[in-house]
């Protein structure tokens, strides 16, 4: 790169001069800490005031970005009244793992975590598999880990999100026969449809990881949550066709590196079971095909393969609408072929 031609010099100069105009706002570290606090059950930033302020900032940002468009209840900016340091103190179960140091007991587990994607037909559930290293606070099984992951980890796929406030803490998790009780430090502040999706996100996540669980009793600080709907009775899974995204891509997973031929796996339902897919590279379609999933509300797995040269791609799976063939029920994943 030593003897540059004139064009290279022009580019370098333009980039440097453009970059020189960029002035970060100055509250970056505070926002990052807010994001980190939101992503874990127990915060260990020493000053509760800072943590609370950061959580409030993040609540504003996350609520605005993810649900601001479709949910105008506008209250997501309000930090949950209970997200303060006293909650921390009461939930800090004395256990060997309550220290956050990297040396404390940790378990790795593959769990299914559900997230929500705002689709034109409303918020729908999508599933991701997360390899999750958890601070184990009891003898919690995979379902408890998965709930922990749901509140602490963001979705890998940037199209997915969670309507739950970013600083929700799991205060208690216990199972009694086929019912799990989850006590949370805060509830969603969203509209009715999003609230339903968020509750089902939790119910699906618990039940997907522990088939012995049929119902989830939801508590917020020990009481039935106050929302748009009555959540005072234990909640079962709503019918898949009502709450699940119609088409999911299961493989390749987001940001995966895979070998060619690439296995396309998914799960879904479409009119006459026809699920279409398309692979794009730098925005241009390079391969497409159709395969069979479930028909008309019945969900079933679908599979296909595509040979691709090494490179980075985006896979879209969708249903071609019966009306005009335009893609509906879209799920996308970016991946790399090595």
């Amino acid at each position, binding site marked *: 790169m030593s003897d540059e031609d004139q064009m290279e010099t*022009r580019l370098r100069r333009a980039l440097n001069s453009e970059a*020189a105009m960029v002035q970060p706002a100055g509250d*970056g570290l505070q926002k990052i800490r807010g994001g*980190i606090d939101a992503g874990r059950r127990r915060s260990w930033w020493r000053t509760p005031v800072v943590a609370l302020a950061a959580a409030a900032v993040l609540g504003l940002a996350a609520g605005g970005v993810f649900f601001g468009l479709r949910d105008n209840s506008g209250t997501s900016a309000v930090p949950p009244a209970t997200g303060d340091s006293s909650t921390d103190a009461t939930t800090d179960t004395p256990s060997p793992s309550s220290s956050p140091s990297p040396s404390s007991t940790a378990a790795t587990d593959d769990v299914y975590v559900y997230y929500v994607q705002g689709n034109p037909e409303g918020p729908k559930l999508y599933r991701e598999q997360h390899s999750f290293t958890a601070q184990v606070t009891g003898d919690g099984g995979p379902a408890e880990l998965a709930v922990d992951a749901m509140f602490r980890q963001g979705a890998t796929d*940037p199209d997915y999100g969670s309507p739950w406030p970013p600083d929700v803490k799991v205060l208690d998790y216990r199972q009694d026969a086929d019912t799990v009780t989850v006590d949370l430090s805060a509830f969603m502040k969203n509209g009715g449809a999003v609230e339903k999706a968020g509750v089902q996100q939790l119910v699906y996540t618990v039940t997907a990881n522990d088939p012995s669980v049929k119902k989830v009793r939801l508590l917020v600080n020990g009481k039935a949550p106050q929302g748009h709907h009555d959540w005072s009775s234990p909640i079962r899974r709503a019918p898949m066709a009502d709450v699940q995204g119609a088409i999911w891509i299961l493989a390749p997973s987001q940001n995966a590196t895979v070998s060619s031929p690439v296995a396309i796996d998914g799960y879904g339902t479409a009119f006459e079971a026809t699920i279409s897919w398309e692979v794009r590279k730098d925005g241009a379609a390079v391969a497409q095909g159709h395969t069979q999933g479930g028909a008309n509300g019945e969900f079933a797995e679908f599979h296909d393969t595509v040979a691709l040269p090494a490179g*980075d791609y*985006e896979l879209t799976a969708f249903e071609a609408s019966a009306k005009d063939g335009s893609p509906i029920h879209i799920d996308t994943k970016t991946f790399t072929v090595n």
Partner: protein
Amino acid sequence: MNGTADAPVTGRAWDADEAVTQIYSAQYGALVRLAALLLRDVGAAEEVVQDSFVAMHGSWRRLRDPDSALAYLRQAVVNRSRSALRHRSVEQRHAPAPMPDQASAEHGALETLEREDVIRALHRLPRRQCEVLVLRYYVDLSEAQIADAIGISRGAVKSHASRGMASLRASLEHTA
């Protein structure tokens, strides 16, 4: 940006929180400028970098040292910028890109025009080519580091760079 964050002074390893604080002070500004060059939007650039730091905090146990953390952050910033671009609406993508900020007084009008021409041409390139050129000519990364940051092979870095430069020459040479 190409340098490394200072090693822990105390001789013990950083925990994830310290790592965030230290690497933030050394690298935050440079990463925001990188994201802003890819996105042409300072607010979105800051969000991308902040999210990347949160993700780095979660992966600290695996990363453990400032060099791998910086490589991880660059990768996250490039990936997340790409996702952010993909999710911008079609109208936004085709609207003239806004200036990242007000030009400061010492930038003459000619220089502003020249910069605008070059940056606009850069953003008309396919995403990979644009990323490669920004990482090479702004961040000054080696081919291997660029390959790592974008997640492509070194050969692909080379070809994206030469195709990108060829397109820039074709669209800009007469305006030199």
